[in-house]
């Protein structure tokens, strides 16, 4: 029973990993572009939630949408003001630009919010439900379920809607897409918005359950890269699957071997998998 409890906890955490990683994988899939600032987007989503709760008195729905919207806008702005230009530069400039952006966002957050840890005041989402002896903390449960639904939603949007086809068209062949009347800049800005928005919601969901400080983005950024690489670069279902696996492995190894070993287990399996299947679980070779 205790083991089942551990598994449930791992999967709920993994669901949130999946959500913010799907944003990272989206940008990669669209533009072959690595966004090192992705973890910082998650961090900003958490602070936006805090601001919405503190100054507007909003509930979970309000700060969830608030974080998603604010980060969507930020993603679009970042694309239009920075990424668009560095895309023309050499590979190294592309990598360093988002790395610089990450540092800028992190230290701006330090400046504004200080290095102290904060957490959301008790929201309506508290308490625990007991399903056949398995305890599910409501914040984690809500966060996990929403994260899975949104990740699936993002996948459906990419595969089943016109906008999704247009996004994919731009990623496959920018020139051909332009000839078909698709405006690549607009599509890529949209992709950045969606990616950052997903990170923002993930941040809001994390904020319900965990305390944080401006340096939290580092941890999330790294996790996101592992999830994306494990799931296969560019694959949203891969990110979902890999996120759940990473969460599960972390929980089980923390329970069996102790918390300081959980990352060793995760990264060892990760390296082993890359060795056997470099394209990731669901990536195209």
């Amino acid at each position, binding site marked *: 029973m*205790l083991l089942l*409890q*551990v598994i449930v*906890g*791992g999967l709920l*955490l993994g669901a949130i990993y999946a959500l913010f990683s799907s944003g990272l994988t989206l940008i990669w899939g669209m533009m072959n572009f690595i966004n090192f600032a992705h973890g910082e987007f998650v961090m900003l989503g958490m602070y936006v939630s805090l601001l919405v709760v503190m100054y507007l008195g909003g509930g979970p729905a309000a700060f969830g949408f608030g974080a998603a919207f604010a980060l969507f806008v930020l993603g679009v702005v970042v694309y239009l003001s920075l990424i668009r230009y560095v895309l023309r530069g050499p590979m190294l400039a592309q990598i360093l630009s988002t790395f610089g952006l990450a540092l800028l966002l992190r230290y701006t957050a330090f400046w504004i919010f200080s*290095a*102290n*840890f*904060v*957490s959301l*005041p*008790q929201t309506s989402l508290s*308490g*625990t439900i007991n399903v056949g002896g398995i*305890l599910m*903390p409501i*914040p*984690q449960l809500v966060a996990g379920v929403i994260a899975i639904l949104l990740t699936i939603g993002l996948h459906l949007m990419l595969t089943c809607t016109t906008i999704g086809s247009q996004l994919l068209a731009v990623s496959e062949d920018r020139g051909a897409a332009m000839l078909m009347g698709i405006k690549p800049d607009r599509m890529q800005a949209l992709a950045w918005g969606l990616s950052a928005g997903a990170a923002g919601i993930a941040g809001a969901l*994390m904020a319900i*359950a*965990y*305390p*944080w*400080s401006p340096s939290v983005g580092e*941890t*999330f950024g790294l996790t996101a890269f592992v999830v994306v690489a494990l799931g296969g670069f560019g694959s949203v279902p891969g990110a979902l699957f890999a996120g759940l696996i990473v*969460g599960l492995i*972390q*929980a*089980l190894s*923390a*329970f069996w071997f*102790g*918390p*300081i070993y*959980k*990352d060793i287990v995760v990264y060892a399996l990760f390296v082993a998998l890359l060795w056997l299947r470099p394209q990731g679980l669901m990536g195209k070779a």
Partner: protein
Amino acid sequence: MKGFRVLKAVAAAATAFTFYAAAQTNAAESVKIGIIWPLTGNAAAAGQASKAAAEVAADIVNNAHPELGDLPLAKTAGLPNMGGAKLELIFVDHQGNPSLAQQLATRLITQDKVHVLMGAYQSSCSFTATAVAERYGIPFMVGESAAGNITGRGFKWVFRGTPIASDYARTYMRFFADMKKQGKKIDSIAIVNENTDYGTSVADAIVEEAKKANVPVALRIPYSASSTDVSAQILQLKEKNPDVVIFISYTADSILYMKSMNNLQYKPPMVIGDDTGFSDPSFIPAVADAAQGAMNRSAWAIGKPGSTTYKINEMYKAKTGRDLDDTSARNMQSFFALADAINRAGSTDPEKIREALTKTDLKPEQLMMGYQGVKFDETGQNILAATYLIQLHDKSYELVWPDNAATAKLQWPMTGGKN
């Protein structure tokens, strides 16, 4: 050239400001105390709070404060054995950087010609700065750094007033023995520690003292303070079901543990937090409910209105607008012990001050802290340092142990959250 003139004026003002404290007290003879703390950077809050505490302490020594009872040097203005000489404080900022702390210690000794040194908050900075003092033969009072290895390097010139990990561990064991006497069941304990120097050394000390006191440690869980999820650890605790869980944790992780324990409906009879995370200003607002009745340690207690500690706190509050905290108070106590030794030395000669320090023997009633006294062993460590235990009652900590100092009644088992 106008810009240059402005610059000169600014520089002059800055210099004047730096020596402001000096000018105030530089009348006849003064004793220069170089103080090295993190006044900017990550630990700036602690450094600034301690600076204010040292300034209050210097005020108490330099001016007559007969209202402060048996506190040494309070009654008289200045140091009576030195014709009323005043203490002159020179603060420098090591920004939390051990190599800078080392350079600043050198500068204070060679350029500012300080007679004694004090510092340095972060153990790593105390570690490097004390080595400089040892080389130059200048007494160094370590105010509150806790790492065991600061003393015990065979140094002659380093003294430490604060309790360290083993003192805290011994206090916990004395507390357990006391509880057992009262019929509380403490068959086993668990230790949950973050896995850097701080958590590891404190946990090691507790394990060792527990062994001596015959208290079985059912489980020890080292973890990384940057963990985002700790439910697995809580389930480990649930499985072993110890009677007391001791947390040596930083801020985010201690909040996370309290929240997750509540969510997973795990409530041991008692939780003890080893200061740090449990004392962080954000701890109580975040988890006051879930952590209701959790215990913590503090050697500082404001005390009843009219008491010496209460009056000291009022002085500090008038200066900063806040209550004195455990960290700054431990620094302040070390400062008083240092001032007491300088007075007994009756001279600014470093060797005489060092000798006086080795003969320090302050009694509990002469202290502002809950130590059993101040007396340094041959390594320079205060062997009478101890701590009070406090407990979260509603939205603040109350002193609950030992009984003779307690201001509120100990609740056992802890109440915890609703879940």
